[in-house]
């Protein structure tokens, strides 16, 4: 069973490489039962979006 700390590493790495099948499954399982990590996951996606918007800002 994945710990939250391990889950945060997988959620970050998922933005940089394709996770293995086993990693994807265990992360999905963990997210089903962990609200904190679901929030973390959403925040990672938000961070990427914010970075891309910031990259294109002119002011």
């Amino acid at each position: 069973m994945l710990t939250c700390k391990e889950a945060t590493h997988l959620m970050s790495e998922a933005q940089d490489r394709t996770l293995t099948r086993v990693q994807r499954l265990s992360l999905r399982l963990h997210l089903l039962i962990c609200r904190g990590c679901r929030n973390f996951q959403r925040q990672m996606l938000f961070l990427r979006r914010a970075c891309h918007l910031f990259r294109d800002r002119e002011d």
Partner: protein
Amino acid sequence: MNMTEEAQGAAHQQVLVEFRPQMLKFARLQLQDEASAEDVVQDTMAAALAGMQGFLGRAAFKTWVFTILRHKIVDLLRHRGRLVEVASLERGEEDMDEAFETLFKANAHWHATTRPRNWGDPEEALNQRQFWQIFEACLEVLPAKTARVFMMREFLGFETEEICRNLEISTSNCHVVLHRARSGLRQCLEKGWFLAGEVSPC
């Protein structure tokens, strides 16, 4: 607005010229030595013009240039053994890792009080100028090396392998650095923006 690459390049040169006095002032303050300050700013401008940031908007370009400058100054100070000055210039990596560790219980699950919170509708933040000021400030307190790897990934769009090769670090180290940057930014934004109105539980 869609600028041609040439126009964007000219705009960036303009930014560098305008930004130069500020960079010099900062470098002088940190290095306490006019000649090195001039050198380090010159190097930074050359590195910034080296061509791989053609598509960056003005704000991101300035942040990127400042990160290069900070990285060069930190290297120079470390080389001179002036570690106190380094510490005042950026958060240490160990410091960030420690802050991250405190979020977890001994069993590596979140503490109830530090568990990532629901940020509500974060899209709203993206329309607010103050949010971007916090965002920039959060980027600027990242350790220079960490910030550089992160920006190469998120602003310049490099693949992790390219970053590793470029900076001569291992892939696993690269993942560690990116995770550190993302969790640091996440914590900084949560504290500085999303929960800013709330009283801290501790």
